């Protein structure tokens, strides 16, 4: 296959719009990983370094990624993992276990899930273990490489870490962090949580085994940086099949971002929240108004989308009620009650 980029491919507009919708919807709805994480390069480097130390050099580590909802914690971790797994050796050796606090609500369920993800159901079979620690030790023992010299490195990712802290005795956390502190096997424990006070939820014995390493994702963007981010999110990359369409689209996005009313909307959104998720909600509404007959996003679309996102739900519901309270001018002197209004209405 020739590596020369085919510059003169022209797809019909309908096809272009379909491709555009696919690309952007994957980005907004499905959280497709960006090529490079934007705005969090230092954290990305830090995380990657830590994971590499476990995967390649056999060091045990524990780490917490803390940030409000929608800040990009899962995206950061997945980007780091993707970059880590590009190394063939790591890809072969590293074992990954992904646990989620919403799904694994109990330590027993969590242990079953760990067994399953490490593909050790057959090994465990019908054995009955005395305690959680024994079970976990057995699992890790079973992961040793063929020549029994060293264990395979294991990565435990705990999503919604704060929910694990509500389990009985925090057994899972204690044992995992215990393993990461003692020299049994190279284990990396990475927790993701939205609570900034997560450390206070941990018991003393758990907290002491934790390395107190935290990566904070508190964004401190300025408005121009936020605008650049919007533009980047909406723009098409070079990988788009029809280069001409991509160029036109990108320039229309640029004009949109320079439009005064659109900027007001973005500024309002910026003051409300700077995380990715609320931005994606707004952009999905804008994207849904792109059709074949109107293959651009106009400022009116952005205004309409903002109106839908930021409308007051309670006011909407109140509007639908049968009673229309019309307060008279001198109503502050007139005591209102339901019988009074009932008499007025009927």
């Amino acid at each position, binding site marked *: 296959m020739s590596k020369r980029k085919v510059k003169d491919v022209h797809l019909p507009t309908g096809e272009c719009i379909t491709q555009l919708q696919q690309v952007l919807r994957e980005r907004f709805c499905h959280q497709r990983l960006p090529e490079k994480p934007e705005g969090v390069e230092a954290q990305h480097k830090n995380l990657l370094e830590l994971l590499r130390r476990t995967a390649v050099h056999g060091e045990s580590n524990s780490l917490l990624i803390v940030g409000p909802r929608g800040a990009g914690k899962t995206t950061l971790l997945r980007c780091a993992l993707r970059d880590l797994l590009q190394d063939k050796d790591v890809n072969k050796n590293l074992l990954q276990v992904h646990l989620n606090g919403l799904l694994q609500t109990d330590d027993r369920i969590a242990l079953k899930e760990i067994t399953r993800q490490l593909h050790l159901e057959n090994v465990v079979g019908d054995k009955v273990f005395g305690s959680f620690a024994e079970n976990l030790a057995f699992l890790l023992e079973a992961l040793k490489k063929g020549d029994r010299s060293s264990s395979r490195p294991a990565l435990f990712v705990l999503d919604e870490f704060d929910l694990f802290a509500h389990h009985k005795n925090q057994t899972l956390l204690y044992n995992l962090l215990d393993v990461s502190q003692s020299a049994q096997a190279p284990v990396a424990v990475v927790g993701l949580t939205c609570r900034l006070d997560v450390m206070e939820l941990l018991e003393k014995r758990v907290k002491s085994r934790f390395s107190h390493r935290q990566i904070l994702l508190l964004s401190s963007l300025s408005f121009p940086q936020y605008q650049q981010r919007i533009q980047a999110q909406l723009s098409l990359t070079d990988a788009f099949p029809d280069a001409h369409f991509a160029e036109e689209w990108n320039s229309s996005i640029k004009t949109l971002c320079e439009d005064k009313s659109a900027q007001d909307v973005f500024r309002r959104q910026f003051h409300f929240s700077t995380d990715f998720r609320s931005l994606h909600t707004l952009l999905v509404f804008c994207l849904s108004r792109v059709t074949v007959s109107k293959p651009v996003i106009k400022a009116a679309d952005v205004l309409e989308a903002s109106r839908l996102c930021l409308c007051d739900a309670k006011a909407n519901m109140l509007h639908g009620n049968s009673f229309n309270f019309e307060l008279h001018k001198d109503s502050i002197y007139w005591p209102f009650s339901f019988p009074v209004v009932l008499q007025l209405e*009927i």
Partner: protein
Amino acid sequence: MPKLLHHPGYADEKLQRVEQLIPCRELQAGMLVSLMGQPQHYSYPSIFIYGHRASGKSHVLHILMKELELPHAAVSCVECVSAALLYERVLTSFFGRSAASFLPRSPSLSEFVRLYRHQRSQSPAEQTRYIVMEKAELLRDADANLLPALLRLQELVDDNITVILLSEIVWEKFRPNTGCFEPLLLHFPDYSKGELQQILSTDSHPSYSAELYSSYINILLGVFYSVCRDLRELRHLAALNFNKFCEPLTEGKETHKLWRNIEPHLKKAMQTVYIREVSSLQWEQMQQTEDEGGALRGLSAHTHVELPYYSKFLLIAAYLASYNPARTDKRFFVKHHGKIRKTNFLKKNEKTSNHLLGPKPFALDRLLAIFYSVVDSRVAPTASIFSQISSLVTLQLLTQISHTDQLDAPKYKCSISLDFISAVSRTVNFDIVKYLYDFL
């Protein structure tokens, strides 16, 4: 707004049929279709639709799912009292009965997700799958992890799936403490008067013309619209009263008398059928017997309550205490009283009668004072009298205002209407109107 009639990815004739089946909801359906996008594209993981009852939420979604033939699982949270039923329903709808049989006895969410992932690897989604959950407010009472997990189900199972929640309650009341994945919020507004007219006119009776029916609907809406905008209620009322409306026609009278004939009838219906004092069956029977002079015997418990003798007087005393201002007690209940000086007492704009303002609270002492002056014989203050006051509270004829801890000075409020107390006082030959300040 994007027009419903055309969207790439869905056949035009299907969309047109959808538009015919959902009158007055084209805007909302169009927005939904544009958000759903083409079937093979990803859609936002969760959408939350809110609106009053009978605003067409379930109707629009079911029509869309059925006509556009989208793979979906329709779940009513009222039916799925346990999460296991929900999991079974979802797995059956997407992967067939055999998939649901793999679920263990009392499955946890972890097992559901694992099973889904397993099934998904065997049959991945070519188009977006939808889970439509009605009465989603009941999810708040389920396990605390169910709602946040459902909102981000797309991420957890790694499949092209969207969860649509329908509810009458706003989203702010759903949000968990530590936050969750925020869904897209869509509002379905109420139908306006014109829209109600349009929709109600579609169920016209086959033997009458459409204009007659729509003029009937017009009259009906004129009477009922100010109190009721619920489509289901209005349809019920329209169906109940149509026969009466057509009576003059069947008897061969003039058509312009129709309005005059039906209007008092509708007013009566508003007071009885609409507030369910009379059941629909009773209403139809009454229509047939056509007893103009007789009062409507309602289903309400109030007309059938029989109270002991002193309780009636206690109730009368309570009513007087609630609806007379305290300063007028002297005039009504003391044997030799002076005249009331009217001018100083009237506060600014105090023209509204006490009956409109609602009952006022009174202390127990005042109640007893009025009681002793109202009851004709000498009554000793025994425990039986006091216990009758408590039973009146239990019957919800009186309401206790003060905190239950305060035993020495309880306060009450009388919560019955003038009609009821007139009926009660008539049975003891007591003229209550003479003692009410508003009727002086």
